[in-house]
């Protein structure tokens, strides 16, 4: 990449627009201090990167106080080795930076332009968190020499920063970025791997649990629900669960419906049991009533009562009659008694008079029998029949009294029966009502009705109880059927998890293999960063040595190198100067070299990096007053160095030293017709900017004078 033109306006020392032809192999910018030499280089740096790191970023620092437009604008034209032309125009209005980038016919602006420009100049910048700064630093480390920056690199930066800087420049930053990305990705990968391993472990535990479940479930005897039995049960049960539609065994809610049916049956059974108990109690009550009541026929009682009353009447009549008879009898008894007394008296007299012959008739007789008879007669009282008569009346009275009592009793019994019958009728009415409420049709024979009802209820209860038991068995079968489904489900689950686990194990194996590979690659990348830096340093160091030798500023410490080490995953880099004769060396050049010699070393390093790096943002060397503090021999060395760099690099060199201008013009003179060497003289600076004078050197077309 070669610079072709620079236009500046309102930028630092350039208040008004100024154009610089840079289409040359060498551009020498000459001017005493304060004429805008550094602003010239800053304009190039700012235009290409958007930054001037040594001054503030995006502030009024780049904006000229004397800008006509109130903004800074820098336009840079450049082209590559194949002739492709590019333009970058960057402006800053004090608030915002704008950029336009043209590549051939393609034009872009702002962020797009910035990205394309960065990609063209320093592709490694895209991996940097601050691409602008990466481009600016790449420019200031390798293309645009700012001695103070390089002096800082050599004398102030720590060894890790130096390594990082060099690693960035040689492109190892991309490797570092890759390594860091890989490290982060590996960590994230590991996290996910661990999560998956944990998930696998959980699934393995679940698998073990499922296998246990399966073993247990498979262990139970599996029976299939017989559909005929199932349907028969529902058919039998339908009498009591008529509101339910029988489900099919195995359907989703079969268990619930069966449970509901069984609960209904249990409820029905409870109802029937209550009915049965009620009937039992009614029957007991009825039996109790039946036991209490003779259920004698009231009519018979009435007949009996009438008969008793009639008998009582007869007895009364008979008593009356008997009493009359008794009075007559008494009379007869008195008469008889008198008779018998007379007979006795008479017998006594007869006894006394008793002889062999009847005194009256003189007839013979059985004296003894007569005597006995007379004695009996004399001894038998007359009233011997009276007690009987009294007894007879009394007996009748008793009989009458008994009859009265019996009639009273019969009458009371009749009344009791009649009352009992009335009560029975009422109870029966209540009973009938209760039975009717129970839906029992009461027949003629209540006892039989109750017995039949009780029997029927008992049968129903038995049927329901059997249905419940059968239902429970069906429920169990359903449970087993569910178990069977569960077995299938478990097997499917186990198969699925086994498959998933196998896939996960395989995945984990691959992931762990990938992690191990990443770890190996990471380790190798860490080493390779150092290797690559070492490799590049192996090339840069001889270059650095030879460039340093061209200037050869120190008579003793004539050997220089960049020494890198890789410790604890981090690279360290130190500049080393050495006296090869005594092997004395120092990693702090400022301790053994003068300020001028450190400048020479810085310049050597700059050129070495410019020539030693695989890629540069620009194929150029931009040096802003590189001769500060250099002694004469070093100055000649630098001039020779630049001359030998000229074929490979576009040179833009500024100096405030007129003598050095002459030296450069002579040393860098064009020796071919197509070679251009320009001298830009900046002078007479005012608020508008410096006066600019450009001269073109004439080429020496016959450079070979002796070896012809």
């Amino acid at each position: 990449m070669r610079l072709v033109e620079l236009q500046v306006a309102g930028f630092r020392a350039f208040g008004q627009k100024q154009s610089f032809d840079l289409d040359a192999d060498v551009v020498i910018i000459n001017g005493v201090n304060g004429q805008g030499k550094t602003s010239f280089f800053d304009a190039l740096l700012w235009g290409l990167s958007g930054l001037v790191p040594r001054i503030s970023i995006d502030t009024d620092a780049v904006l000229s106080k004397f800008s006509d437009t109130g903004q800074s604008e820098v336009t840079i034209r450049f082209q590559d080795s194949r002739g492709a032309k590019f333009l970058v125009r960057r402006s800053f209005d004090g608030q915002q930076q704008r950029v336009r980038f043209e590549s051939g016919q393609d034009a872009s602006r702002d962020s797009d332009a910035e990205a394309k420009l960065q990609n063209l100049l320093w592709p490694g910048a895209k991996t940097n968190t601050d691409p602008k700064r990466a481009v600016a630093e790449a420019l200031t480390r390798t293309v645009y020499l700012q001695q103070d920056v390089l002096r800082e690199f050599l004398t102030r930066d720590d060894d890790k920063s130096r390594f990082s800087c060099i690693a960035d420049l040689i492109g190892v930053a991309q490797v570092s970025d890759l390594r860091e990305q890989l490290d982060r990705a590996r960590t994230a990968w590991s996290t996910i791997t661990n999560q998956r391993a944990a998930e696998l472990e959980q699934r393995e535990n679940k698998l073990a649990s499922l296998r246990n479940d399966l073993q247990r479930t498979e262990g139970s005897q599996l029976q299939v629900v017989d559909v005929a039995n199932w349907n028969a049960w529902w058919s039998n049960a339908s009498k009591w669960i008529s509101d339910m539609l029988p489900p099919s065994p195995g359907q989703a809610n079969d268990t619930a419906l069966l449970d509901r049916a069984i609960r209904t049956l249990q409820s029905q059974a409870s109802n029937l049991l209550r009915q049965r108990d009620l009937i039992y109690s009614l029957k007991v009550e009825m039996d109790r009533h039946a036991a209490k009541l003779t259920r004698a026929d009231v009519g018979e009682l009435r007949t009996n009562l009438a008969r008793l009353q009639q008998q009582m009447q007869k007895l009364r009549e008979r008593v009356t009659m008997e009493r009359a008879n008794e009075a007559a009898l008494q009379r007869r008894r008195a008469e008889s008694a008198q008779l018998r007394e007379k007979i006795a008296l008479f017998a006594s007299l007869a006894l006394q008079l008793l002889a062999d012959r009847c005194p009256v008739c003189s007839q013979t007789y059985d004296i003894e029998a007569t005597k006995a008879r007379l004695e009996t007669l004399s001894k038998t009282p007359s009233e011997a029949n009276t007690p009987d008569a009294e007894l007879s009346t009394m007996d009748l009275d008793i009989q009458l009294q008994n009859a009265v009592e019996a009639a009273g009793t019969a009458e009371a019994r009749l009344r009791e029966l009649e009352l009992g019958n009335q009560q029975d009728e009422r109870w029966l009415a209540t009973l009938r009502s209760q039975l009717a409420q129970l839906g029992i049709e009461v027949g003629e024979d209540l006892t039989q009705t109750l017995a039949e009802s009780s029997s029927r209820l008992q049968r129903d209860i038995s049927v329901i109880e059997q249905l419940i038991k059968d239902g429970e068995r069906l429920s169990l079968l359903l449970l087993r059927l569910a178990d069977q489904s569960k077995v299938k489900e478990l097997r499917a689950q186990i198969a699925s998890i086994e498959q998933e686990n196998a896939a996960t194990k395989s995945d984990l194996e691959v992931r762990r293999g990938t992690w191990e590979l990443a770890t190996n690659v990471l380790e190798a990348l860490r080493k390779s960063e150092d290797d690559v830096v070492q490799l590049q340093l192996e090339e840069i160091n001889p270059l650095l040595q030879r460039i340093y030798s061209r200037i050869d500023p120190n008579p003793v410490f004539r050997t220089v190198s960049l020494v890198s080490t890789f410790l604890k995953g981090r690279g360290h880099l130190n500049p080393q100067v050495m006296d090869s004769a005594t092997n004395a060396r120092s990693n702090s050049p400022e301790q053994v070299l003068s300020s001028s010699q450190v400048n020479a070393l810085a310049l050597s390093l700059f050129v070495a990096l410019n020539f030693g790096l695989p890629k540069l943002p620009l194929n150029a060397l931009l040096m802003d007053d590189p001769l500060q503090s250099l002694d004469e021999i070093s100055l000649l060395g630098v001039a020779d160095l630049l001359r030998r760099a000229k074929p490979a690099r576009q040179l833009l060199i500024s100096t405030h030293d007129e003598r050095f201008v002459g030296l450069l013009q002579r040393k860098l003179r064009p020796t071919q017709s197509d070679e251009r060497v320009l001298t830009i003289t900046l002078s007479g600076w005012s608020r508008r900017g410096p006066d600019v004078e450009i001269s073109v050197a004439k080429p020496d077309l016959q450079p070979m004078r002796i070896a012809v």
Partner: protein
Amino acid sequence: MNGEILSETQLLAAAGELLKQGGYREVSSERLESLKSDKARVYEDQYAVVCLVVFPSWTELRSRWTNVQADFVELLSKYLLRADAKTWDGYLVLLTPAAALEQWQEAQEIRRDTTRVRKLVGTGEDLRSLGDVATLVSSLLPIGTAEAVTDKTETIWSLVYQSLEKKGVHRDTIQSLVKSYEEQRNIMEALKDSLNT
């Protein structure tokens, strides 16, 4: 080289060869006149004229270099005008295989003497290999031919590939990794894929 001190012949041949490789032409010995010596050569390119002289000892170098310089200036003045820029681009390269450790200050004085022509001085302790000779004359040579040994077509990744391959990481794996990185895809997936392949 075997670490021995280079001979005068070797020094002369090596330095001359380097100059010619750097685009110098050797001036015909017929033109050297007073510089004619077995151990002196003169070379010229577009910018400079270089007189290369090898002395057998430091003592001889110290005693003769001014004479050699005079002869060289005379040669320049014969072919160049005073106004020619090239008149100021004469280089006298003074070499000796002999060590001059004790005389380094004297050697330094010769180096720092910028009158008439610039002097490059190399003594035995600094000239132990062809590389040392190249370093000494490097300021006379284009940077691109003498020092810039880096193969610019070799990307940093190819260096990384080489380094990683040496550490046992397969090239396909590295390429896949780098490709994935550059395309901003998941680099672990790239490694995983490379495992599968």
